[in-house]
């Protein structure tokens, strides 16, 4: 059966080492069953400490008001919305890997999709904090929801991109969570059925919803995954499009441009893949998952990074060109006086270097397959993408139409920075817990691709090619013959 399945010999195996199904389970589940390493504890405690600092920063902001931050009447969005857009963007890679690459039948996604989806969920959780706490009176955040109220009822403005954001982000979070968890069910059942301790058996029994692996359930599960992937694909594009609408539908120079939706989506995928690389390289090292997250996976993701990085670079240049070509003095001033040059010029050039120049190095195969270089690059890209949002927000706001409201220089307070660090704490605390208590690689999906693309199968295929046709036919015939005699003997 498997001999008829077409698989190119030029592709490298997705799973290294001659693995059996049982070994795959063992390799991935043993990290859940073993005690966490020292490194895990150190990382976890640092994350929790950051989270605590963030919680205190937020506490101050809620108690004393937005004045705890240095945002002002001119630069109203500052670090806060920069961080929001940055985190949402990071989330996009997870959905891209789990949904779009599923539709495109990219086999390599199976090694990284589970952790990438988890990353999406945690990143969106972090992102959501920023607009919510930016409201100032956070206890009234539910005013954004259209519910029958005693104020009329007064409805939110459905024509406002800020309300679209509420719908987009909450839908995105919900759908990603459902997609992720429905995929987790079979793997949690695997952990449950291997569990040696009572408490683990009980907890994973509850979490796996009583999954049994029935053929009918698998059939429905596959159909569900496919439809959820089909829904998530336009969803992920819509989410960052809507985020870009927050800017593009305004009349602020530098924001008021039709290029924003594709430019933001490409940037989101770009930064998201960089974050996936950062996490995967750590996970691979700490958990010893070299056979599942191979150099092939890393290279494939680096190819996505160089593609989306180039799209982003193209968008930057297009913006500059359009500012000149439009002959609108405000646009020209923003771009050529206050972005490229001016007090924030350094952030523009930092963004350009990190996002446009440095990813071009990934055209070299050697660098694409270099783990250390990839790791450094993944961090460089995310620094660059943070500065992209900073440049867009701050450099467009600090010199707007009214010179009397121009702001000299904006720098964040410690509580503003603390809030950002706190979301790092939240993100990594969640990720550490996830890597300890959940299968970080989709076990069932790996088993599904194992026979078709694993190293053992590749070797078998090579053997087939070198064998003489006659010998092959003979062997096949002989095999059938043997099977037949066994049957007769038992009857």
């Amino acid at each position, binding site marked *: 059966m498997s001999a008829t399945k077409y698989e190119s010999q030029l592709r490298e195996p997705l799973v290294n080492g001659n693995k059996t199904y049982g070994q795959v389970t063992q390799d991935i589940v043993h990290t859940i069953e073993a005690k966490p390493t020292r490194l895990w504890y150190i990382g976890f405690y640092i994350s929790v400490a950051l989270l605590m600092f963030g919680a205190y920063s937020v506490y101050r902001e809620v108690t004393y008001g937005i004045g705890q931050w240095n945002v002002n009447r001119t630069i109203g969005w500052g670090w806060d919305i920069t961080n929001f857009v940055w985190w949402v963007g990071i989330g996009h890679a997870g959905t891209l890997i789990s949904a779009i690459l599923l539709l495109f039948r990219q086999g390599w996604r199976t090694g990284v999709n589970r952790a990438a989806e988890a990353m999406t969920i945690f990143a969106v959780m972090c992102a959501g904090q920023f607009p919510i706490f930016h409201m100032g009176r956070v206890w009234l955040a539910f005013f954004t929801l*259209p519910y029958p109220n005693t104020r009329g009822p007064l409805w939110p403005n459905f024509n406002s991109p800020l309300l679209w954001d509420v719908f987009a982000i909450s839908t995105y979070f919900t759908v990603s969570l459902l997609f992720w968890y429905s995929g987790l069910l079979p793997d949690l*059942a*695997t952990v449950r059925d291997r569990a040696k301790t009572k408490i683990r058996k009980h907890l994973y*029994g509850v*979490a796996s919803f009583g*999954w049994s692996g029935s053929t009918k359930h698998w059939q429905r*599960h596959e159909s569900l995954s496919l439809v959820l992937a089909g829904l998530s694909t336009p969803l992920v594009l*819509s989410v960052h499009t809507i985020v870009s609408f927050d800017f593009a539908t305004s009349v602020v120079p530098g924001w008021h441009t039709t290029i924003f939706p594709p430019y933001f989506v490409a940037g989101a995928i770009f930064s998201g893949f960089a974050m996936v690389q950062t996490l995967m390289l750590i996970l691979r090292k700490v958990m010893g998952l070299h056979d599942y997250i191979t150099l092939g996976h890393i290279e494939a993701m680096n190819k996505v990074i160089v593609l989306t990085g180039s799209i982003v670079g193209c968008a930057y240049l297009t913006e500059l060109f359009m500012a000149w070509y439009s002959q609108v003095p405000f646009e020209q001033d923003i771009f050529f006086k206050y972005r490229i040059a001016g007090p924030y010029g350094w952030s523009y050039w930092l963004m350009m270097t990190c996002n446009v120049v440095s990813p071009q190095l990934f055209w070299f195969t050697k660098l694409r397959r270099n783990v250390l270089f990839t790791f450094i690059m993944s961090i460089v890209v995310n620094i660059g993408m943070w500065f992209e949002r900073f440049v867009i927000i701050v450099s467009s706001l600090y010199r707007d139409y009214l010179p009397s409201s121009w702001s000299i220089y904006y720098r964040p307070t410690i509580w503003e920075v603390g809030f950002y660090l706190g979301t790092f704490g939240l993100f990594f605390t969640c990720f550490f817990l996830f890597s300890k208590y959940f299968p970080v690689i989709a076990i069932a999906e790996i088993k599904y691709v194992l026979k078709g693309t694993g190293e053992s199968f590749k070797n078998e295929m090579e053997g087939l090619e070198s064998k003489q046709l006659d010998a092959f036919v003979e062997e096949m015939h002989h095999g059938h013959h043997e099977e037949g005699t066994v049957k007769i003997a038992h009857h």
Partner: protein
Amino acid sequence: MALKKFVVGCFEDEKVLFPAVAKVRKAGYKFHDIYTPFPVHGLDSAMGLRETSIHTAGFLYGLVGTTTAVTFMTWVFTKDWPVNIGGKPNFALPAWIPITFELTVLCAAVGMVLTFCYICQLAPFVKKHTFHARATDDLFVMVIECGEKTNEDELKALLTSVGAQEVNTQIAEEGWWIGRYDQEQSLYKEPNIA
């Protein structure tokens, strides 16, 4: 809810499983189920299961979302509380596309997952009998229900002959119940099996 008798055959390789499924079907036995650690393509049709129509349900949920969003926003902005925003039309369909789309996706996804859980009887605290603990690891577990006329020994011999590595008989609850996986199954003190 009743206890029943099942004959269980475990296979280690899907290459052996497929011919075995065909032979067992041909011999006239009816599968209770085949439990696999991952989706085995073609097994559903080999077993004679029909295609799932869960995607159709998803489409209908999506339609519900679309209709809800459009009618609600229309009602709010044209009937309940029309607001003059710079003289723009109250019925601003293009501006509602994002929310309509998001609600469509949300309803379709949530509805489908809930339907999936409902028809597969999946929920926290639901317990089903585990025929073999390695069914979620590396074994393909074929389960055949014994009727009154089933010759158990013959069936076991058949399963062995088609390549099952391990064959046994189990008395189990066929459906689901609320229970805990860390506790042994003890639904009835005396199983009423003939």
